[in-house]
């Protein structure tokens, strides 16, 4: 093989040019795949966000009706003594006719009159919660009995949906719960300024409401429940996760125990969340006798779910600290423990925090395990402050979303989307913090 005239074919300029063309075509194709992939991801995101935002933003406004209510002493204080106990004995059922009567008077004054409207239909235009609102007022102000007081009630969910334009006269034709005359009346009341649509902060602050009152349902209890659970997850999973990572990354010798722990951790990261729900039910509730529906149980279950995420992130962060730094500390006579706690851990902190926030965000959106530990519940009372509140019943944001989607009244669909928006705001906020942290504190060695 000493043939000096042998010229490799690849060097033929034409072939080479063709090859280069092909290589560039391949390059372009490859790049296009990338663009396509990104396009698909972003399109999916946009589609989802648009559907959620479109459906959910109206949940932040609500229709209110003003009404003059005559607080009839004959009904509210039959004994006439203004005795608080006697007033308390009058149940909300007795207050409903008062509202009906007042509204009747109000419509009679509306000019021109609305044909076909009856007192019952009119009363149906305010929320079922109105009598309770009235009763609370009367109990708080027993002296007002006998007077006429102006109240502002929530409008009934159907009316509210009509005012928001979610249902129209056509789409509601045949709706047994909505009479066309009510829509006429609503139009008139809107014109008169008695009824108005405005921002409703109560959607964030109110507790849940029963199925008859979609207009009153809020996210207050769910927000507190979620906050409590996140607090537990943070307080438990961060130290335990960091401690476990330090052990595994810095101290563990290669042994069967280490192997078992490693397999366990990566397995727990992949165990279906529903299985954690079974664990929570069997272990925390049935075995340890922790209360149902309590943030403590949800928090513990989510802690166990979040731990692997935090451990994996923490180990990566510890690994990224160059060994030279630990060696430098050891070199000046620090113990291994001191070298790690004084030097390695602080340097790994940004990575650990990022991992923790992402783990928390995941835990915040988790639904399935909470279904099995009684978090899908109707909870009206706010849990107490910390730490007692951890044992009080509460729900969680994603569960509240699920809960809203399960209900019969279509007005809850809007509230589910609204709850998703709130949830997404938190998730985006948490992710943003994680990303900012990562970018601010990221170090390259």
């Amino acid at each position, binding site marked *: 093989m000493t043939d000096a005239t042998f010229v490799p074919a690849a060097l033929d300029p034409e072939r080479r040019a063709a090859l280069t063309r092909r290589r560039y075509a391949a390059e372009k194709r490859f790049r296009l795949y990338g663009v396509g992939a990104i396009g698909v991801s972003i399109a999916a995101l946009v589609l989802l966000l648009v559907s959620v935002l479109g459906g959910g933003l109206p949940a932040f406004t609500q229709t209110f009706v003003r009404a003059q209510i005559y607080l009839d002493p004959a009904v509210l204080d039959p004994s006439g003594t203004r005795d608080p106990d006697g007033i*308390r004995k009058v*149940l*909300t*059922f007795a207050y409903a006719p008062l509202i009906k009567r007042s509204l009747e008077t109000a419509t009679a004054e509306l000019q021109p009159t609305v044909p076909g409207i009856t007192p019952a239909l009119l009363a149906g235009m305010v929320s*079922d919660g109105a009598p*309770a609102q009235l*009763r*609370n007022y009367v109990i708080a102000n027993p002296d007002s009995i006998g007077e006429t007081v102006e109240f502002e009630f929530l409008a009934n969910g159907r009316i509210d949906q009509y005012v928001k334009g979610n*249902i129209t006269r056509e*789409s*509601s*034709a*045949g*709706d*047994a*719960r*909505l009479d066309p005359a009510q829509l006429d009346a609503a139009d008139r009341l809107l014109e008169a300024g008695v009824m108005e649509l405005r921002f409703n902060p109560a959607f964030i602050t109110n507790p849940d*409401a*029963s*199925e*008859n*009152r979609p207009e009153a349902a809020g996210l207050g209890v769910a927000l507190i429940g979620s906050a409590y659970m996140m607090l537990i997850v943070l*307080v*438990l999973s*961060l*130290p*335990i996760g*960091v*401690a476990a990572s330090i052990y595994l990354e810095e101290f563990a010798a290669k042994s069967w125990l280490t192997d078992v722990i490693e397999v366990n951790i990566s397995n727990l990261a992949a165990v279906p969340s529903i299985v954690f729900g079974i664990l929570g039910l069997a272990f925390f509730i*049935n075995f*340890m*006798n*922790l*209360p*149902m*529906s309590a943030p*403590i149980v949800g928090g*513990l279950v989510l802690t166990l779910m979040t731990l692997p995420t935090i451990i994996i992130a923490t180990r990566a962060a510890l690994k990224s600290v160059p060994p030279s730094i630990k060696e430098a500390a050891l070199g000046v006579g620090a113990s291994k423990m001191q070298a790690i*706690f004084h030097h390695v*851990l602080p340097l790994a902190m940004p990575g650990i925090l990022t991992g923790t926030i992402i783990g928390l965000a995941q835990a915040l959106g988790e639904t399935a395990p909470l*279904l*099995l530990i*009684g*978090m*899908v*519940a*109707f*909870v*009206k*009372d706010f849990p107490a402050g910390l*730490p*007692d509140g951890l*044992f009080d*019943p509460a729900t969680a944001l994603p569960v509240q979303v699920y809960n809203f*989607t*399960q*209900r*019969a*009244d*279509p007005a809850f669909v809007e509230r589910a989307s609204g709850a998703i928006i709130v949830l997404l705001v938190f998730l985006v906020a948490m992710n943003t913090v994680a990303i900012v942290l990562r970018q601010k504190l990221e170090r390259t060695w």
Partner: protein
Amino acid sequence: MKTLSSTVAALALAASLPALAAAQSRGQIQIAGSSTVLPYASIAAEAFGENFDFPTPVVASGGSSAGLQQFCAGVGLDTVDIANASRPIRESEIETCAANGVKDIIEVRIGYDGIVFASKTDGPGFTAFTPAQWYQALAAEVVRDGALVPNRARTWAEVDPSLPAAPILAFVPGTKHGTREVFEEKVILQGCEDAGALAAIAALKGGDEDAATDACVKLRTDGASVDIDGDYTETLARIQSDPNGIGVFGLAFYENNTNVLKVATMSGVTPSTGTIASGEYPVSRPLFFYLKKAHIGEVPGLKEFAEFFVSDAVAGPDGPLAAYGLVSDPELAATQARLANEETLDPAS
């Protein structure tokens, strides 16, 4: 060393949580169970909280089975007080209850849940059905020429020329739902009997009635009958994306969605709270809640809540439960009396 100290502190906290829990006492009534009863229980609980000085009861939902299991786990403040159920408690469950010390159980029937057949308002004209038609449309196997053959009916018109010529597509509750049991018993099995198929199958199986019953209630798996494991909102969404579909709904759900759903009559009777209460409309089921007698007096407001739940003002025909869609129990007074006397289920029965 600060990190170290806080780690130690957190570990100590983790270890002390169960201890803290044991120190807790509970103020509010805890209810668990059927998701069908959940709306009624939450309406009652909300009204109870508004009218009394007791805290609003907490109503968890997780199905009758899970609710009763929690209920039967034992007596004490760390167990639920009330279990909602869309079916009567079973014998084996009473036994488990008794084994765990839950001996005195008060059964309270709050009313009835009507089961209706509804389709999209602008869909095919499903207006009137009989159980026999449903059986012939959905049974996995039908009797033809003296033999059991797979059901090949594609459209409702093939089943009965009086029905629309729309493809058979029924969304029925999944086998986890209590509604399914009622559907099988009161529609499919009834239809099987009405159509004379029950007797024919029994004859084919050598007179084995049980085997014939099993064969009757077996539904098609070729896509004509679709099990829905979720709730009625899912059935509704399915129907909205499949206009030919017809779904099985609870009366309350239908009444909340009359603008998109139209209901069909069954054997000529239109479902309504009236027709169901009178027994004219055949497909309905009772709804219950179960109460631990041992908890009365221990959990504040428990008996008051139970009595409030079934009081005329709440569960009566003009109460908020009926407004939502509950079929009021004509024998409500008897239920109220039993509750007032704290009559328990006889463990032997």
